[in-house]
């Protein structure tokens, strides 16, 4: 399964009114290209911080479902934040990690997630549950129930390396993304 396919499947499983934070790199661009919405916030810098942003958001908006679209490189960069998520334990926090064991945006250089099972680290830190899926059919099956039980929960999706040719870049300016997201989050 390509990462873009997996991102699209997760996005399609989201309900209206849910909020998404997408990490920097290709994942945000793939989410944007598949289905943009004001309730989706795409990062272009500050690698490693999507989980922190999603956590802060989930804490202050407990009635909204928050989905973080993250990558293995991003999670490994901020492993301590898994502890922050577990300690705060927001039931509305869902962490989806697209794991290709590579830094996809900079040329597929290896990360270490082939030897470090991130979903096990999350549970060891105190996430309520986590699951690893390896195929499109497993992902479909898991998505049918993943968001119905309380978080904090992690869904780790194994994806192929490589980027979709011609993937779009987010056209709105960062400041415009903030303004529209805040309006959507505070509705």
């Amino acid at each position, binding site marked *: 399964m390509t990462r873009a396919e997996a991102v699209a499947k997760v996005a399609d499983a989201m309900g209206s009114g849910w909020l998404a934070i997408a990490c920097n790199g290709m994942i945000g661009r793939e989410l944007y290209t598949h289905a943009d919405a004001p309730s989706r916030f795409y990062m272009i*810098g500050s690698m490693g911080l999507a989980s922190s942003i999603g*956590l802060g*958001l989930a804490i202050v908006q407990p009635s909204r479902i928050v989905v973080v679209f993250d990558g293995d490189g991003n999670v490994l960069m901020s492993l301590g934040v898994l502890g922050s998520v577990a300690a705060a334990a927001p039931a509305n926090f869902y962490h989806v990690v697209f794991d290709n064991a590579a830094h996809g945006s900079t040329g597929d250089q290896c990360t270490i997630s082939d030897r470090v099972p991130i979903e096990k680290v999350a549970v060891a830190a105190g996430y309520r549950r986590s699951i690893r899926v390896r195929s499109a059919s497993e992902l479909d099956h898991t998505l049918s129930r993943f968001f119905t039980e309380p978080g904090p929960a992690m869904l780790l999706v194994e994806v192929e390396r490589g980027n979709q040719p011609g993937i779009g870049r987010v056209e709105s300016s960062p400041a415009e993304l903030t303004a529209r997201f805040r309006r959507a989050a505070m509705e």
Partner: protein
Amino acid sequence: MSPPVSQRFLDLLEHHGYDFFTGVPCSLFAGVTRILDREARYGYISAVREDSALGLAAGAYLGGRQPVVFMQNSGLGVSVNAIVSLNQIYDIPALLVVSWRGRPERPEGPEGRGDDDAPEHLIMGAVMEDFLRLLTIPFALLEPATLERDVDELTRTMHATRKPVALVVPKGVLHQ
């Protein structure tokens, strides 16, 4: 008896609309963190790193809050990328309350800088103000006599620019 400065400081922040508190502690503002840790109503989030605290604060801002991030000045180094590639380009404001370890106190000292403090603080302490200027972060030095005016002005600047501003905490004001 009037409340201690740390409580008055928190009251002042709340009065100016701040309603989300996170950070990493420093002995120089230990009095504030003691209150934040003790009183659940502040919802203080003890962050694992300073840049993560900025991320938490950004998420809170996106959800409608007005955040404060506490950190030692050593944490400014950790936070540079978050400040410039998250807060400043996305127009995500925060009040940074940053302690000033290694502040030059005896310019005539052998090192010509804050040689009263531990070695790891001396270099950051010496360049602290230049560092904030370089990152174009408006800042004021927290002093009891000018505190109310400075918080008011910094908050106005923060709202007008939608970017982080900093209140620099010297030794001996918020430690208890």
